[in-house]
């Protein structure tokens, strides 16, 4: 039975630090072998999860949700009122999206999402989180120097715009609805979805209109 004893676990981590192989691949291989032998994991199920996140569950889901919000005001209102219910219209509810809050970028507000305490992320609509989102640097700096962070991503926010940083400290998960770029009036929902990037839905990018013309 679990002890819930912090001091005991700190000692276990100290032992593991001394005895586990340094190579990450070896660590995970040994763990999977042991869990399979103990009857706690079926490797075919592990394969299936990897396939699902490689092929199906990715930022395209969030992009389709945003594109619909851009083209359907009633859907946008539902998305802002109850993010989870709105993405369930697409059948997208899943891992870490049971309490989804959509926050909308406007000419006056730019939203940015972080998890300073671990790396919480709405996996079922954005897929696997990017490495930088899980980095110490992003987690430390996003709440303190959001404009500096955004500049590193090539995003300049005017002094008259409020930057809102959302720290995912509970089981609520945040999805940024980026601003629809100008010059996209002729695009349909599917075309608009191609403009919505993963980073734009975290807040570290803006959506851009497709380049027109040759060259």
């Amino acid at each position: 039975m679990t002890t819930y004893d912090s001091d005991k676990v700190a000692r276990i981590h100290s032992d593991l630090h001394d005895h586990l192989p340094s190579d990450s691949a070896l660590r995970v291989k040994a763990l999977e072998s042991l869990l399979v032998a103990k009857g706690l994991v079926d490797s075919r199920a592990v394969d299936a999860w990897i396939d699902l996140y490689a092929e199906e569950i990715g930022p395209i889901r969030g992009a389709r949700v945003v594109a619909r919000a851009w083209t359907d005001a009633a859907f946008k209102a539902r998305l802002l009122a109850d993010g989870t219910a709105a993405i369930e219209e697409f059948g997208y509810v899943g891992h870490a999206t049971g309490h989804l809050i959509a926050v909308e970028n406007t000419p006056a507000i730019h939203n940015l999402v972080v998890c300073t305490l671990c790396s919480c992320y709405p996996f079922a609509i954005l897929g696997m989180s990017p490495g930088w989102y899980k980095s110490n640097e992003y987690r430390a700096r996003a709440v303190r120097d959001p404009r500096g962070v955004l500049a590193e991503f090539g995003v300049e926010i005017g002094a008259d715009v409020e930057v809102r940083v959302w720290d995912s400290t509970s089981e609520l998960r945040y999805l940024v609805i980026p601003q629809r770029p100008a010059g996209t009036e002729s695009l349909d929902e599917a075309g608009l979805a191609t403009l919505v990037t993963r980073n734009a839905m975290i807040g570290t990018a803006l959506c851009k209109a497709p380049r027109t013309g040759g060259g």
Partner: protein
Amino acid sequence: MDGVHDLGGVQGFGPIEIDDDPRPFKHDWEGRMWGINEAVAGGPGWTLDWWRHVRELLLPLDYLTRPYFDQWAQIYAALLIDSHVATLEEVVEGKPRGAGSAGASPMRAEEVRAAAGRTESFRRETGAKPFFGVGQKVIVRSQGTVGHTRLPRYVRGRPGLVHAYRGIYVLPDAKALGRDEAGPLYTIAFQAGDLWPEAAGRRDRVFVDLWERYLEQ
């Protein structure tokens, strides 16, 4: 706990390494670890918040330097040892020394698609009423917590405004101890200038989800 995991606002970190590689996993072992985490049958008494706390308890050096999914492997190693499902030797060798099976029934491949469409609700209907109202000023408790908590250090003792009341949610501090308690959850808005001296006068705000027990009048 006052740990290195509580990174919000900690200074001294350099530029963010931005990598636009669209692949979900750069290394096979990262994907394996993700899949293991999704497919594993839980051990006795494991909870999401205890899992998070076990990560927080990594040696600070390991927390700050070992790769992300490598830390997950160590979380499971520690969970197994702590709950007597495996020994240190078994974890290091990757094979059981004794009888083997822990008697659980792990997720099957055929069940993965359905599992991927399920989500856990952390909301509870206890009948409790929120003490604070939207727009009200609050002060975050200044004391830290010995065990797991979702109250980040950078807002302790700081004034904020109730931006939203979210409902009654499972309390992580208790769940990390195996107890099912719940309480009112709010999103609190902090002016950047109330958090960071260099941000005085900046219009930006930081929004943090905080349970009522983290707050004072």
